């Protein structure tokens, strides 16, 4: 019932302009995120006060929007704008700041992303934000499957940003994983015509049950498991592609995996 029609990714590769295969998998991955020139994509507004995370979500939304009317905007973010959260928190403990600026507070709220996308695309339809750690995108995807059952044409995506504080923390807890910024969005509709792929199901379950599900449904000749983990234990041989290698680590990176 849920068919993917368009997608757009902003990542360390030049994926926004070239797609994932040419922009990322077949080319050398940059160490820094490759932002598109937002002025070219988001026309007619002042981008200066817009947070990076909103720019990414909005640019991806615009790229995914078909000529058909969009009925729903569904956004997943694990941590929303960390940069603005940090900025506002620090201004709270700064004794020299007697008057607080509301801008970082507004930008730190999770649903500012979906709200700004609605505002700038003048979309008055269903609007929602999911935030469930590294399962944020899965909630958004399940809602999108429900929305297509209800006949709606949906924009769904994930977006998160890394800030230097995260790297300091991952060093302190001796984690080898480096956090990155990234975003992927899709246009999903109930219409099969001209679609790129179908979303059959979205399941959240314990690792053991997920492994049973994979083993039961996997055809090792034709299927590929696209996983966010580099190490997976499975009883039979399964072709696995680890997307985190390309996307980097961020909480809504399963959206990149789906792309």
């Amino acid at each position, binding site marked *: 019932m849920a068919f993917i029609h368009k997608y757009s990714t902003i990542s360390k590769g030049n994926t926004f302009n070239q797609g994932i295969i040419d922009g990322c998998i077949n080319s050398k991955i940059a160490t820094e995120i490759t932002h598109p020139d937002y002025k070219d994509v988001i026309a007619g507004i002042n981008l200066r006060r817009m947070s990076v995370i909103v720019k990414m979500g909005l640019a991806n939304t615009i790229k995914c929007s078909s000529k058909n009317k969009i009925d729903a905007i569904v956004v997943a973010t694990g941590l929303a704008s960390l940069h603005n959260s940090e900025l506002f928190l620090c201004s709270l403990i700064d004794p020299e700041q007697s008057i607080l600026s509301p801008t970082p507070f507004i930008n730190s709220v999770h649903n500012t992303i979906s709200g700004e996308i*609605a505002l700038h695309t003048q979309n008055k339809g269903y609007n929602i934000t999911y935030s469930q*750690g590294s399962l944020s995108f899965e909630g958004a995807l*399940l809602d999108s499957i429900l929305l297509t059952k209800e006949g709606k044409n949906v924009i769904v995506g994930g977006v998160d940003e890394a800030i230097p504080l995260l790297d300091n923390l991952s060093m302190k807890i001796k984690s080898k994983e480096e956090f990155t910024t990234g975003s992927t969005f899709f246009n999903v509709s109930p219409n099969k015509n001209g679609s790129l792929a179908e979303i059959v199901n979205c399941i959240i379950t314990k690792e053991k049950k997920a492994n049973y599900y994979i083993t039961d449904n996997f055809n090792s000749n034709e299927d590929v498991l696209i996983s966010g983990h580099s190490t997976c234990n499975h009883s039979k041989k399964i072709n696995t592609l680890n997307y985190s290698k390309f996307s980097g680590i961020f909480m809504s990176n399963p959206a990149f995996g789906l792309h």
Partner: protein
Amino acid sequence: MSISITGLGIVSAIGMNLDENLNSLQNLKSGISNIDLINELQENFLGGEIKLTNQELSLIAFGKDQQEVFPRSLLLSLIAAKQAWGENNISPKIKTVIIGATTVGGMDLVEKILEKDVRIQLLAHNPSGIITDYLADYFHLDEFKTTISTACSSAANAIILGSRMIKNGLADRVLVGGGDALTKFTVNGFNSLRIYDTDFCKPFDNNRKGLNLGEAAAYIVLENKKSMAITKNKKVASILGWGNANDAYHQTASSPNGEGAQKAMQLALDEAKLSSKDIDYINAHGTATPNNDLSEGRAIEKLFGQKQLFSSTKAFTGHTLAAAGIIELIYSILSIKNNTIFPTLNHNALMPELKITPVTNIIENITVNTVLSNSFGFGGNNATIIIGK
């Protein structure tokens, strides 16, 4: 498809359980006072604060002292969720999911890190999903789990998702709710927006200056018939309809004509297959900000006419952000169960822009069959739920 509410749990500034909340509402006892548990607020703020320390809350939540430090929102949520879940058990025959709602998550602990910058592990408490993660483990809910964060409409949207999952056969039973503690982040944030009243908030009053924040958590259990046949739980009320629409007007404010609010309410009526005259009472969002009450008031007037009974219970609890939608849904159930409409406190002067008048004195012995509850917020997010007997 019938979606029954079979369990209720609530903690707020006016009570640590359902009975205490009802008692405060019936006796017009507001929970708004000086916020004194958050240290180092630069000014004095009024808010709906629960006068228990985290240690005391932890003792209620777990029944014994805990070594581990938990965010306050999590403690409030656990207490409310345990009341709602009650004697429910996990059964392989019932597909049970959990949906939470929060805006600040564990922000109170993150604030402490920045002060001391040593307790790094506490940063793990920033993501919004931690409360749902903890509750899912606590109640052994191994299937779908998620958290919605749409500011002040979060819990309402969580209830809407739960209802849609039951309607579409993706769940038989849903533990759904939300919680937000008072934090320095949100109190200062709303103050920086210049919509925090230094006095007691006055919803739908011509002299309203803004909101008072509050802290609360509430959870409910939703079930379909199949689940109720197994659990033998009794129906308390039913979810009849819901609507979600965006204003697409401003980052933080609602459109002055209440376009998004009207759309959300109309969608909910359509889903419930009801007309506006079927609604006995509206529990309004009524935050007491100049913008919300004008926008929402106009939307109610346009859709329901001048005689519609409506009130805001925000002056009892403060604006409890992500929890507001579920706190007020439970108050709506209490209205139905007790044949009572709870009033808008602190109301003195009518708004000249509106022809409708909020309920300002408690109305008892009135038949309330159907209630519409609004939750509007930041980012233009509008959500409406209709419940019935």
